[in-house]
C-alpha cells in the first residue's frame, strides 16, 4: 500500500477514536493501535512516538474532515 494511504488509514481510525460514542472507545482505540503496531513492527519507533510524529498531519486531517462536514451541512440547509 502506498505511504499516503497507510498514513491516512491511521489518521481515519484515530479520528473515529476521538469522535465515536463513549461505549465504542475501546473498539476504535484497538483498531487504531493495531494499524500503528503493524507499521512500527521491525522499526526502532514505539507507538507513542509514531503518533506524536503524525500529530501535525492529524490536526490537518481533523480540519479537513470538519470542513467536509460543514460543507455537507450547508448543502442540506440549502435544499428546498
Amino acid at each position, binding site marked *: 500500500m502506498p505511504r499516503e494511504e497507510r498514513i491516512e488509514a491511521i489518521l481515519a481510525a484515530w479520528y473515529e*477514536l476521538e*469522535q465515536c460514542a463513549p*461505549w465504542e472507545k475501546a473498539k476504535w482505540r484497538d483498531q487504531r493501535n493495531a494499524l500503528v503496531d503493524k507499521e512500527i513492527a521491525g522499526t526502532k519507533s514505539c507507538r507513542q512516538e*509514531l503518533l*506524536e*510524529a503524525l*500529530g501535525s498531519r*492529524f490536526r490537518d486531517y481533523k*480540519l479537513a474532515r470538519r470542513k467536509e462536514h460543514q460543507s455537507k451541512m450547508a448543502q442540506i440547509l440549502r435544499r428546498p
Partner: protein
Amino acid sequence: MNEPGVVEPLRSARWDAVAFLAEKNAKDMAAPQPNLPFLLVAWFRQIEIFHDAETERIIGGSPTDEERQAHRQALAMLIWQGESLGGCLREHDVSAQVAIKLSDVEAALEELYDRQRVFYGGMTEERRAQVLNEVFGAS
C-alpha cells in the same frame, strides 16, 4: 484597560463552557457518595466540548497565549478526572446502569495522553521526519 487601538482578543465561550463543566464535575466527584454513572456521562460530554473548542480555536484559529493555557489546563484536568473515574470503576461495577466500560474510559484516557504529547510533547522536526521516514519510507 487596553491602549487605544488595541483590541482585546475574544475568548471563545467554548473555553468558558469547558472550564465550567470541569469545575462542576470536580465538585461532583468530591461528593461523599458520587454518582458514578452520571459522572462518566458528564466526563465524556466534557471531552466532546473540549474537542470542539480545540478544533475551532486551537487547530483552526489563531489562539492567544491565554487560550493555549486554557487548553493545556483543561486537558490536564480531563486526564486527572479520567484517572479518578478509572480508579472508581475498578472498585465499583456499574455495567448494569451504563453501557460505558472501564476499557472505554482507559481508551479515552489513552487518547487524551496522545493528545497531550501531540500538542506539548516537544518532538523536533528533525526527529519527526526521521520517525516518519523510518516507518513509512522516505516521502
